[in-house]
């Protein structure tokens, strides 16, 4: 069976892209390696701020449920859950491994919405069991109902570090401290105050020095850091923790993009190597589109909008919708997107996207 579009990744970007495309007449195959669609939304118990009245005050798990239900009710979408993408081939096929075995599916276009992975931090003992990525802690508690341990040191005070600290408390786990190497808290003030009201100290200009333990984490030492993030000897404090949770950022999962030969570029503001793509979310390999964290680390609201733009662009590219209607709809989505990115906390990603835009325009001018 040939599809018009294969979407790899059933998180907020992939689900939104698949829906938008299918609603415009595109026949879609959606694959995800997890059995439950939703990506990171399945573990996000906090309420979203939303935008333009969309999803305001709705919990991530509920947004995931709505998108999942819509995708499953859409006759033009075939879902391959519990299925991994093994490789892209230039004859426009994708090798996949599903519970029933390895097979190949083909399509005219692709949307790679493969998400991100956690970033590691360098310190002694960072490989001990008990050191987890923040996403893993969220999965373990909010999806599987198991506490990661009894007492946690959270490293990083971005929104993920703050929200996961709050969620740990909801699950009955003690959070000893949140350490932040920068002089100020990274995440939104509303999340930080919530965490402080619970009595969890946020220590800025602090980082982890080492993890203790032989078989697994039995404690941690933190210390103050200077302006260059170097530890200051003599400021060490020992914490009695059995879990060290790293919320030190994400980096795009670009394996499939690299393998498919998409042009990539290093943009630190977007989390590392990202694909080069235009305003329609299309990469320099025609017919391969990207959206979500794989295209640059941001958050679920912008991922859904970028997914919609990609889905719409696919519909236009294969002639399912007229050019003019496409441009009108895309411009409206792009406007919502720039409104979402207008706040001061989006300075970094805006710089990142401007770099990509400049690169694309430079190449077009040549």
């Amino acid at each position: 069976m040939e599809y018009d579009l294969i979407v790899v990744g059933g998180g907020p970007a992939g689900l939104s892209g698949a829906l938008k495309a299918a609603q415009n007449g595109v026949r879609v195959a959606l694959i995800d390696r997890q059995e439950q669609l939703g990506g990171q939304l399945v573990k996000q118990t906090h309420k979203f701020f939303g935008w333009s009245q969309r999803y305001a005050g709705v919990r991530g798990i509920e947004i995931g449920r709505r998108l999942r239900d819509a995708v499953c009710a859409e006759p033009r979408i075939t879902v391959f859950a519990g299925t991994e993408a093994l490789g892209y081939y230039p004859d426009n096929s994708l090798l996949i491994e599903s519970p029933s075995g390895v097979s190949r599916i083909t399509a005219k276009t692709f949307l790679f919405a493969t998400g991100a992975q956690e970033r590691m931090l360098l310190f002694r003992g960072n490989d001990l069991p008990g050191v987890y990525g923040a996403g893993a802690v969220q999965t373990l508690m909010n999806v599987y109902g198991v506490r990661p341990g009894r007492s946690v040191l959270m490293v990083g005070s971005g929104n993920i570090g703050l929200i996961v600290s709050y969620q740990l408390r909801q699950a009955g786990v003690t959070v000893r401290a949140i350490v932040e190497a920068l002089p100020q808290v990274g995440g939104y003030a509303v999340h930080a105050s919530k965490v402080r009201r619970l009595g969890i100290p946020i220590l800025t200009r602090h980082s982890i020095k080492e993890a203790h333990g032989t078989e697994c984490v039995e404690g941690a030492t933190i210390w103050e850091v200077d302006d260059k993030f170097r530890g200051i000897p003599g400021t060490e404090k020992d914490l009695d923790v059995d879990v060290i949770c790293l919320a030190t950022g994400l980096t795009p999962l670009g394996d499939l993009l690299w393998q498919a030969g998409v042009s990539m570029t290093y943009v630190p503001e977007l989390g590392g190597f990202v694909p080069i793509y235009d305003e329609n979310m299309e990469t320099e390999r025609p017919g391969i589109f990207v959206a979500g964290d794989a295209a640059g680390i941001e958050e679920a609201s912008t991922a859904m909008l970028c997914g919609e733009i990609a889905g719409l662009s696919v519909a236009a590219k294969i002639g399912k919708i007229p050019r003019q209607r496409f441009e009108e709809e895309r411009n409206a989505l792009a406007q919502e997107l720039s409104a979402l990115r207008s706040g001061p906390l989006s300075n970094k990603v805006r710089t990142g996207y401007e770099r990509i835009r400049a690169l694309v325009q430079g190449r077009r001018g040549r």
Partner: protein
Amino acid sequence: MTGLRIEEHPILDFPKRKKVKFFFEGREMEGYEGEPIAAALHAAGVKVLHHSLKLARPRGFFCAIGNCSSCLMIVDGVPNVRACTERLREGMSVERQVGRGPSLTGR
């Protein structure tokens, strides 16, 4: 099961699932059918899942989404199974893996 299972939560419900028995290093253990092996082991207090290739350092799970390869275990004799995504079934035999694990071809 130890106190690591969340019984009450202000937002989430964890529906009761079927309990199954499985074997970890020959020891009989209990978990819920269909949950990842690593979740059942973690709830039973087992944090070390694997020993690293060069220095045989203990490894637990790190990413919990089948991405990082920190949790590779031997399941029913098959090495390199990702314990953080592989679902638990009645009677499964689960063992810690050292390095790449045993060769299936006997070499």
